[in-house]
């Protein structure tokens, strides 16, 4: 704020200076402003450098080293090994690649279901809460936001109880005459199960014998496992509250006149939503999708608490696999390499999403 005022005050002086001709750089009020600017940002910059940039650089070094996890990775115990850790994960057909590919498949289905569903649910809740005549709005807003402020650990443990073999969910299903699965022990994929309903139990040869990165197409097309589905439901439920709040803030920024004008133009509710509200929410939608996408590719705590990658590795995610490889298996280089591959995936998908959601109206 202070800097802004100073900037405004300095403007006439600066133009006068330009009119007079050259002045030595760095002097004058503008130069001091830069120093002050750095001062004001120093705490944030400091935090980012110490807790983000430096650790990232350290991890980058570990990912190309053979650090054993004993002592300092910068103290001569670790040696540069080039891209060995990356090639073990990508080009050699061993267990390391198999698990990475499986974790990416799992996480892909997780993202595919969580991001759209939580966005739609959040938007739906926000629109519902934005209605001007709604009794108990404060109550609903709190209720919907509640899962987001509760700790993931607590919610995960409650879900463990709910979905245990003889838990509440299966008891209710039993009362309804259905036989619930052993949620956290069922590695069957939803798409495979769906195909099973239509009598397809064994993969056609074309899918079983061909694949990508050492995983057959049949396994790529497994869909999320039953266990993963529980984690998906949990994630949608917990995060949609946060995004609802973001949508709600954006909705309240849309002037009522716009909607009134649309009503005057004879639009129905769906047309107003589709043609007026949604386009005006585009920046917010982009924000929510981006945050959702990034958060979903980094899913860790639910897996860590609820399933540890089990059953049969169907809830492994790259973030958890990186942890497992490093801490469990003591292969720190490979673990760090997984996290950089995950970083690459997130960057590529975010750029892709930005491209797909770009402003296209200008061309019309």
């Amino acid at each position: 704020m202070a800097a802004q005022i100073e900037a405004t005050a300095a403007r006439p002086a600066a133009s006068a200076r330009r009119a007079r001709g050259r002045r030595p750089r760095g002097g004058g009020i503008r130069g001091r402003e830069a120093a002050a600017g750095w001062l004001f940002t120093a705490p944030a910059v400091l935090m980012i450098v110490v807790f983000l940039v430096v650790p990232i650089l350290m991890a980058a070094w570990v990912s190309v080293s053979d650090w054993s996890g004993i002592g300092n990775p910068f103290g001569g115990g670790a040696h540069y090994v080039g891209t060995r850790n990356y090639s073990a994960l990508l080009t050699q057909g061993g267990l390391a690649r198999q698990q990475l590919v499986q974790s990416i498949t799992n996480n892909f289905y997780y993202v595919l279901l969580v991001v759209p569903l939580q966005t739609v649910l959040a938007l739906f809740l926000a629109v519902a809460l934005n209605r001007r005549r709604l009794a108990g709005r404060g109550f609903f807003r709190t209720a919907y936001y509640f899962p987001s402020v509760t700790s993931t650990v607590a919610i995960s443990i409650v879900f463990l109880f709910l979905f245990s073999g003889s838990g509440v969910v299966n008891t209710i299903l039993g009362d309804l005459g259905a036989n619930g699965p052993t949620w956290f022990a069922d590695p069957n994929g939803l798409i495979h199960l769906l195909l099973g309903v239509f009598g397809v139990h064994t993969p056609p040869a074309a899918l079983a014998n061909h694949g990508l990165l050492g995983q057959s197409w049949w396994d790529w097309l497994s869909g999320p496992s039953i266990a993963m589905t529980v984690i998906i439901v949990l994630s949608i439920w917990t995060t949609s509250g946060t995004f609802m709040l973001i949508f709600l803030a954006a909705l309240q920024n849309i002037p009522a006149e716009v909607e009134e004008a649309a009503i005057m133009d004879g639009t129905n509710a769906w047309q107003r939503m589709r043609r007026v509200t949604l386009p005006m929410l585009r920046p917010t939608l982009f924000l929510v999708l981006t945050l959702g996408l990034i958060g979903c590719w980094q899913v860790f705590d639910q897996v860590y608490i609820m399933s540890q990658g089990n059953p049969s590795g169907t809830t492994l995610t790259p973030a958890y696999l990186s942890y497992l490889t490093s801490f469990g298996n003591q292969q720190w280089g490979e673990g760090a390499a997984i996290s950089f591959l995950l970083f690459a995936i997130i960057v590529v998908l975010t750029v892709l999403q930005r491209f797909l959601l770009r402003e296209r109206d200008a061309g019309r």
Partner: protein
Amino acid sequence: MKTRLGHAKTAAIGAALLMVTSACSSGGGFGAGGSAPSGGGTSTGPLTVLIGSSGPAETKAVTAAAAAFTKQTGIKVTVTAAQNLTQQLAQGFAANSAPDVFYLDPVSFQSYAEKGALYAYADQISNPADFYPALKSAFTYNNTFTCVPKDWSTLGLAINESDWTAAGLTDADIPTTWSQLESVAKKLSTGGRAGLVLAPDHTGVDDFIYQNGGTLLSDDKKSAAFDSSQNVQAVSFVKTLLTSGAAKFPAALSAGWNGEAFGENKAAMTIVGNWLVGTMSSDYPSVKYKVVTLPSGPSGTKATLSFTNCWGIPASDSRRDEAVKLVDYLSSAEQQMTFAKEFGVMPSRESDAAAWTREFPSETAFLQGSPYAHADLAIAGGTQTISNYDSLVAQLASSDPKTLLSTVQTNFEALIKQNG
């Protein structure tokens, strides 16, 4: 105006300096760790002991034992129960601040021993020959018995007595061979109840493999023989049990693990370790059951698996002599009997066998397995390879044993090659 900006400039320089110093101090911290001769352990204050506790009873018992040790020797000890032992240990080693004494499982043992991070102190412990052979082999690296086992468990066959009598079976029917096991399991399978529930991981098949004269990894961890014909035969037998409905994995019975399925009487028998005893007395006290030794394979070979942890000491620990004294105290025959009474473990010393059998007559079957117990599967960097083996076993009912074992063989061969 001028003075204000002057202040700002001073502050900016100050902040920049702070940034530099903090960067220095982090760098310095690492440098100091790397150059110091004694990396691991605490150099001052009490000895630190990190345990992966099974519960409050164990934490209390170990803390009390440590206090008694302090009283005797004057060496102060702090016992900490880890939230996540593997992770905290890894953090400790990375930061050169590993605890002076810690619980260590056989797989982590292999990994740390391979890196030379463990102090081989077992020969300094009184009467090291007293420990059971299977346990010594679990904690031997490069022919050196490195750290001493704190206690152990073996697998036995637990039988629900009321199911047993209801099926018209008597003590004479207790299975001693695979075929008898299969036939009683079939008799005990009624309604929704399975005759036998097996652990859905490698421990569910490895005991059958050893009973059939098969092997998994060589003692030096340099060769693997998962796909041998004996192994295929043994795993095929387990598959037959599963497909005939005589045996089931816990998931098929809507149970989290085999002990739960057994306790809730969703299965009449289970192959399980000593840990069942605690679960049964706390969660299912009304269920009457007994534990017998595992049946032998077709050629009469008896075998069971053993599970254990050792007391680890970091190689670079500056106070390892004191740490060895503490371990010597904690692993003594007398102290182990105290632990056995307080949280139900089986002492790792043979000299405790008689006293333990007197104290826990219903659990003798677990101890009877000691002459033919095989150490549970362990290899350096093997966590993920073993858990992959586990996942494959969990799907045994619908897979081909031969393919399963050759996949496992390939994975372990790759790991052996990687370990060099």
